């Protein structure tokens, strides 16, 4: 038996960020993971640090967290491959250009600088994009990084400040101040954090988290093929709906010169195998924007599972039915971006402090009255669109 202040279940980027925050505040912290650091959605994701505005709550969380990453960037070791390349939201027609203008105004209102590029300026910024395109919104403060090593860095920092990592070690149950491991060990802690991503509902049945599978392709090295993270703004017409399988154009340049090609979303897929039809549609979508991308060599394809919630906001904070239990899960495609803010919000909740941004929208309590109510509440409280960008 071991007694600590906090046991964090899950060593993905969210668990690692929480561990760093807890250890940094002097809590005796233990992290347990069934596989190892960054093995779940963290390993599968693109690693795009991005401001998103599907809802005002999402915007607040991503703006805050993107800033935290920038503040941390100077300390990140080389293997994290932090690259402040910015995001280009690509507009295919005038209707999407209207969206560019709306987005720019909204971002400006929350202090995020962005720049409108017309078709000519976009062609100069990214010569390999098809022409003509109407333009794009450049968000220079967005970045990309390599998530497993980012999680590794955060966990090493936590360990440096006294945290302990138990992995590979499967957790059988977690609650009421006790965490039972598969090897029979029982950990006792004043606080438990469920940061298991898609696996969170295994430890807390009934949690409204669904697996949402995504595909990614990685290419051989083509330095300079594209220079920014490129995302289509076409979601007004084509993109990711809440309910259906979908693909969208989303290409990322890695520091290594490799390209990541995304993205896809599907519900109901439980296995890690490749959905050939969806992969083909995803690649075809990328070719529609980058005609030459088909000529590059694809090295690997993989899939991963996002932990999706019905209102597309994460679950961060205490679980009202167990005063020892906290949640930090349900980040869907934004876990890499929002991991640092999640850790801050969680620590504030633990210490009863006011966080830098309002914590209420992310509190797990919103789901205690049933999924339908939460959906309604989310729908009423902001102009959440039925669309999104994907990161896995």
């Amino acid at each position, binding site marked *: 038996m071991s007694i600590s202040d906090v046991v964090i279940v899950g060593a993905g980027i969210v668990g690692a960020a929480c561990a760093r925050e807890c250890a940094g505040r002097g809590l005796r912290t233990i992290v347990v993971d069934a*596989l*190892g*650091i*960054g*093995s779940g959605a963290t*390993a599968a994701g693109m690693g795009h640090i991005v401001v998103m505005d599907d809802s005002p709550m999402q915007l607040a969380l991503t703006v805050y967290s993107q800033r935290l990453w920038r503040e941390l960037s100077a300390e990140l070791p080389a*293997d994290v491959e932090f690259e402040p390349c910015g995001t280009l939201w690509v507009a295919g027609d005038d209707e999407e250009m209207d969206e560019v203008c709306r987005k720019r105004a909204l971002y400006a209102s929350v202090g995020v600088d962005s720049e409108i590029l017309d078709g000519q300026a976009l062609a100069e910024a990214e010569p*390999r994009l098809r022409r003509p395109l109407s333009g794009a919104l450049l968000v220079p403060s967005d970045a990309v990084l390599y998530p*497993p*090593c980012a999680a*590794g860095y955060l966990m090493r920092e936590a360990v440096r400040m006294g945290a302990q990592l138990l*992995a*590979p070690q499967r957790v059988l149950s977690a609650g009421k101040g006790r965490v039972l491991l598969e090897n029979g060990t029982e950990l006792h802690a004043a606080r438990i954090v469920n940061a298991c991503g898609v696996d969170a509902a295994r430890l807390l049945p009934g949690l409204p988290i669904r697996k949402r599978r995504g595909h990614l*392709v990685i*290419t*051989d090295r*083509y330095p*300079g*093929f594209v220079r920014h993270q490129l995302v289509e703004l076409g979601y007004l017409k084509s993109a990711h709906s809440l309910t259906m399988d979908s693909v969208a154009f989303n290409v990322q340049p890695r520091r290594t010169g490799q390209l990541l*090609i995304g993205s896809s979303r599907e519900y109901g897929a439980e296995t*890690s*195998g*490749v959905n*050939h*039809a969806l*992969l*083909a549609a995803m*690649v*075809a979508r*990328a*070719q529609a924007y980058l005609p*030459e*991308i*088909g*000529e*590059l*060599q*694809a*090295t*690997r*394809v*993989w*899939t991963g599972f996002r932990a999706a919630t019905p209102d597309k906001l994460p679950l961060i904070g205490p679980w009202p039915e167990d005063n020892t239990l906290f949640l930090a899960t349900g980040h869907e495609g934004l876990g890499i971006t929002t991991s640092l803010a999640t850790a801050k919000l969680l620590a504030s909740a633990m210490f009863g402090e006011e966080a830098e941004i309002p914590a209420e929208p992310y509190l797990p309590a919103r789901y205690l009255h049933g999924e339908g109510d939460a959906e309604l509440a989310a729908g009423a409280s902001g102009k959440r669109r039925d669309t999104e960008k994907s990161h896995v």
Partner: protein
Amino acid sequence: MKWSIDILVVGAGPAGIAAAVTAAEAGQHVGLVDDNPVPGGQIWRSGAPLPVTARRWQARLDASSVVRLEGWRVFDCPEPNVVRAERNGFKPAHPDAGIDENRDCAELRCRALILATGARERFLPFPGWTLPNVMGAGGLDAMVRGGLPIAGKRAVIAGTGPLLLAVAAHLAARQAKVEVVCEQAPLSRLARFAAGMLTEPAKLWQGARYRITTRHTPYRTGCWPIAAHGRDRLEAVTLQQGRNRWEVPCDYLGCGFHLVPNIELPDLLGCRIEDGFVATDALLQTSVPGVYCAGEPTGIGGVELSLLEGQIAALAASGNVDRARSLARQRRRRLGFVRALQQACALDPQLRELPQEDTVVCRCEDVRHRELHEHATWRQAKLHTRCGMGPCQGRVCGAAAEFLFGWHAGSVRPPLFPASVSSLVSPREPALADESLVAANAFHENAKETP
């Protein structure tokens, strides 16, 4: 031309050739796909006089109705009866290089699939193993067959397995000065193996012949290279045998630690894998109905067993079960040899000490030994160091890591080999407009019309 056939054979080494020829002679419409430009696989590589057996099978292949897709590489199998292949030699086009006119991608449909994907050499990392002119034993052999001038050059052949003697004999025949052959297995174990081989007269004879050809070459057992030296390329090798260490100046080091079966394609298809090899029934059907496996992926047994297995799989896949059963009885008698060879070539645990802290283990991603041993699993090591994530997709370092750290490779996903991004989109139909293929198809049509 919609491409649909009865039996598709993947791999044109001995097992694949035997399978394709046997199935075609049994009246099946057969396709044979291989990424090399000519059939023969690794062992029957052109460029050197081929043994009689090889020439006989090649002649049967040439006379058969088998449709050959030479220079096509299978990179995906979305379903057990659907194979996607890309024409080999498609170089990754640099963005500025324009479109490669030769690029092509095909989707082949078949009733039964015979996987004869062969094996590759196992490399173990040691200081200097990435120097130019250090290569696999089989790799060096292939380079020589491909025209590398070796006459008068000094070569050291090292590693484990019967391949070493074959390579040494071939190099000696090409007037190379083979300084020494180093077999890591101890003499006692080789003696046991040789005794067991008395039931295998053909193999014993073959082994003896190699010994005769290389009789001026010392054959050291329990011996291996611990370092390769040189500035821009190999200049010398440090060898170790027991407590003795000495340096041998040389121009080439061919070093291969036996063979690793190519099981990625069967694995992708979901075929059951046992102890690193594809599990089959007596007639070589895998755990996936309609998918057969022949040759080294079922167990490293050499050419004769591969030929036998190719025939068994072809007969079974084409419904000639009685003939398949009778050959399967012959095969069963040879399986003892497979086990004995595996035991004889078992790697000495001391070889785990070969890599130093800064020795590169993954050449593609430049990952060194010290970066790896802190991780608990292959997946963790991959994620945090990128080991095995380069173009070879872990085919080289994965087998090394399995021995060094006891790690097992994870799941296999398409593409099995780097393929052009556009090939991931469903290939065009008809995808094949290849002249040789058209000719072969025409031949097939004619053959059918001939009474």
